[in-house]
């Protein structure tokens, strides 16, 4: 998941939500249960079917490098379309309006096109199995080991967080037992990825992509019908917003217009942070160096397919706000309380403060609850009902906007499909992390550091065992997060700490022949230390946010963006200085790895409509049009 989802996702899956003892949001009927059961049967069928086609290392870890551009592209974008993303960003749209769309457009499209057009030839030509594998070829074992260990730890812990987040969401939405969700999902993931390897993970990601659209597309369609179309939605939001926020309601419909100052937009961000921090460092770091997504493209069957895959993915990525951002906006005006009044969602802290603990239903912490609600725009009469323990006075968090909208419009069968889409999103997130962990562990840690001369079948066995190991550790991590809530912040921060230094190391390695092995290693290592220090500084001294984001008006959303920017600059300086002080590799040794030292293979002539550049230009035009349209 992309880094700035962190604060949203932490609250979405917060164990504190379990304390609020409201009834589940949805009640499944037998038809819904059947829909979910069929999905699990299909997933396991695919795993068993693909087992026979995952016998060699190339087949198991790289899906035989047989994927078409469409499959690799859908899998590439689907790996980032987990349920936490869907629910988190729908909640974000409820809070911040279409500013949340930046994370789908400027925070993704330029980087995806850059990967396809510029970087993919180097990844593909050197035939690496992984991103740490590229670093090994370019900088040597030290830099590769730093990246491999960081990736492995991050992926396995993220899988656990994902697993726990799914269990919390299923508990809140459906009332399912936490352990039931954790064990059913982990057993299914262990079976289908353990049997079919990366191919199985990719198949299920494509399946998930279709399910998400099939299950979630109805919500914005029906919501728009009920809201009176786009103009009706806009009018209603403008009317409601005046009573909810100090920011003008019109700001909810502009991507760029109000980003000239931190205080003028609901998100508290500045356009420089969006363009440089999000649009460049975070986005490029995630889409071009995060092995979880890059691995999908490396599985393409030829260079043209590998270059086309991210470009195909970019079109779908641009469409995702329709099923994520729009439901969040619609939730602002359409969600209702049981008494018919407009439902206002609140922060997770308010829900936790108002948890009902006593058997009588009355709040045992009413002072805390009252203080928390006083900071919201909930009507006074409704606050009184909550304090009195009225069963109809429910409190729901921003991140429950999407499931609440699903419950509003989806009846039996369709609701099962929507819930299946969420489960599929969670499971493919786990599967993606576990399969990437397996590859990095086997090829970048076990093979170079523990057993260099094993047979291919030995490494495949190690890959399968590492998947089993990964799932077991993920289960442990899930329970650890349940016991020690604060851990989730740190686990989710791992990616954000790591991404900027890695991006700098790879960009300098790929585009600067002078970058040396020691510079790559030191840049990566010191960059990670620098980034982690900034994270801890803000964690321990919250007022430091103003220094990191360069403004006293900056909100937490701005922190990750600016921290990534400074970490990238710091790493770049280290790489440049150390490179200039050390001896570079001869250019001949950089063949296939660095721009200017590599002769790219000539691609076969194709009809104009299959030309990579044509589709990239079309994507740029649509991207520019959307940004101007919603300026």
């Amino acid at each position: 998941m992309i880094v700035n989802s962190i604060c949203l996702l932490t609250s979405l899956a917060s164990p504190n939500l379990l304390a609020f003892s409201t009834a589940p949001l949805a009640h499944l009927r037998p038809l819904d249960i059947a829909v979910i059961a069929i999905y699990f049967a299909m997933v396991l069928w695919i795993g068993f079917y693909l087992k026979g086609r995952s016998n060699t290392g190339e087949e198991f870890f790289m899906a035989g490098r047989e994927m078409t551009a469409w499959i690799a592209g859908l899998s590439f974008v689907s790996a980032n379309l987990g349920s936490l993303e869907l629910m988190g960003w729908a909640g974000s749209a409820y809070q911040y309006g279409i500013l949340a769309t930046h994370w789908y457009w400027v925070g993704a499209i330029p980087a995806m096109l850059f990967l396809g057009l510029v970087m993919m030839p180097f990844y593909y030509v050197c035939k690496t199995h992984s991103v740490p594998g590229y670093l090994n070829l370019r900088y040597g074992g030290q830099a590769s080991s730093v990246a491999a260990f960081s990736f492995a730890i991050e992926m396995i812990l993220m899988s656990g967080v994902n697993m726990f987040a799914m269990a919390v969401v299923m508990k809140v939405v459906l009332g399912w037992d936490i352990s039931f969700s954790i064990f059913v999902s982990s057993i299914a993931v262990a079976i289908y990825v353990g049997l079919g390897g990366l191919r199985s993970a990719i198949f299920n990601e494509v399946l998930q992509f279709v399910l998400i659209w099939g299950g979630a597309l109805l919500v914005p369609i029906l919501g728009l019908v009920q809201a009176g179309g786009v103009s009706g939605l806009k009018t209603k939001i403008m009317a409601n917003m005046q009573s909810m926020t100090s920011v003008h309601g019109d700001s909810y419909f502009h991507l760029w217009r109000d980003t000239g100052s931190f205080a003028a937009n609901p998100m508290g961000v500045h356009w420089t942070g969006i363009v440089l921090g999000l649009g460049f460092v975070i986005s490029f770091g995630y889409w071009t160096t995060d092995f979880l997504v890059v691995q999908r493209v490396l599985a393409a069957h030829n260079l043209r397919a590998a270059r086309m895959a991210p470009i195909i993915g970019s079109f779908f990525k641009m469409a995702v706000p329709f099923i994520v951002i729009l439901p969040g906006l619609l939730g602002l005006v359409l969600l209702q309380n049981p008494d018919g009044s407009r439902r206002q969602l609140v922060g997770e802290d308010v829900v936790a403060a108002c948890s009902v603990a006593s058997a009588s239903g009355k709040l045992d912490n009413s002072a805390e609850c009252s203080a928390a609600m006083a900071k919201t725009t909930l009507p006074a009469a409704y606050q009184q009902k909550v304090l009195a323990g009225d069963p109809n006075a429910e409190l729901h968090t921003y991140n429950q906007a999407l499931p609440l909208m699903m419950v509003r419009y989806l009846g039996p069968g369709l609701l099962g499909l929507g819930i299946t889409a969420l489960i599929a999103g969670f499971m493919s997130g786990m599967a993606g992390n576990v399969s990437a962990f397996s590859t990095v562990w086997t090829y970048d840690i076990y093979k170079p550091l523990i057993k260099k001369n094993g047979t291919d079948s030995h490494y495949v066995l190690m890959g399968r065992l590492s998947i089993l190991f990964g799932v077991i550790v993920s289960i442990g991590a899930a329970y650890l997060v349940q016991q020690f809530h604060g851990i989730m912040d740190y686990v989710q921060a791992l990616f954000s700490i790591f991404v900027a230094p890695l991006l700098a190391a790879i960009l300098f390695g790929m585009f600067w022949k002078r970058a040396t092995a020691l510079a790559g290693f030191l840049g990566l290592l010191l960059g990670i230390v620098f980034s982690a220090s900034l994270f801890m500084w803000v964690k321990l001294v919250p007022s430091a946010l103003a220094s990191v984001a360069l403004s006293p008006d900056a909100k937490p959303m701005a922190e990750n963006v600016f921290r990534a920017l400074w970490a990238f600059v710091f790493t770049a300086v280290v790489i440049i200085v150390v490179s200039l002080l050390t001896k570079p590799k001869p250019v001949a040794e950089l063949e296939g790895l660095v721009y200017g030292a590599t002769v790219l293979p000539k691609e076969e002539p194709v009809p104009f409509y299959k030309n990579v550049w044509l589709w990239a230009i079309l994507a740029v035009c649509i991207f520019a049009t959307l940004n101007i349209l919603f300026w």
Partner: protein
Amino acid sequence: MHGSGIPIWFFIGVLLVTYGLMILGYGVYEWQTASYPAGVQLTNLHTPVWWGGLLAALGLLYVVKFRPGRA
């Protein structure tokens, strides 16, 4: 997928046909008996009927086009 074997699109087609028919069947029952679920909005649009039908039709297209053994 490139190469031999059952394409992923066939699996997707099977799943969509199954889901589509289940949802369509329920939608027809719901329409005939006028027994709409409580709390669900816009039931007058009979969403399960047309959405289920759409899923089934799309799935059938994929099943036929990507069926195993098709040249």
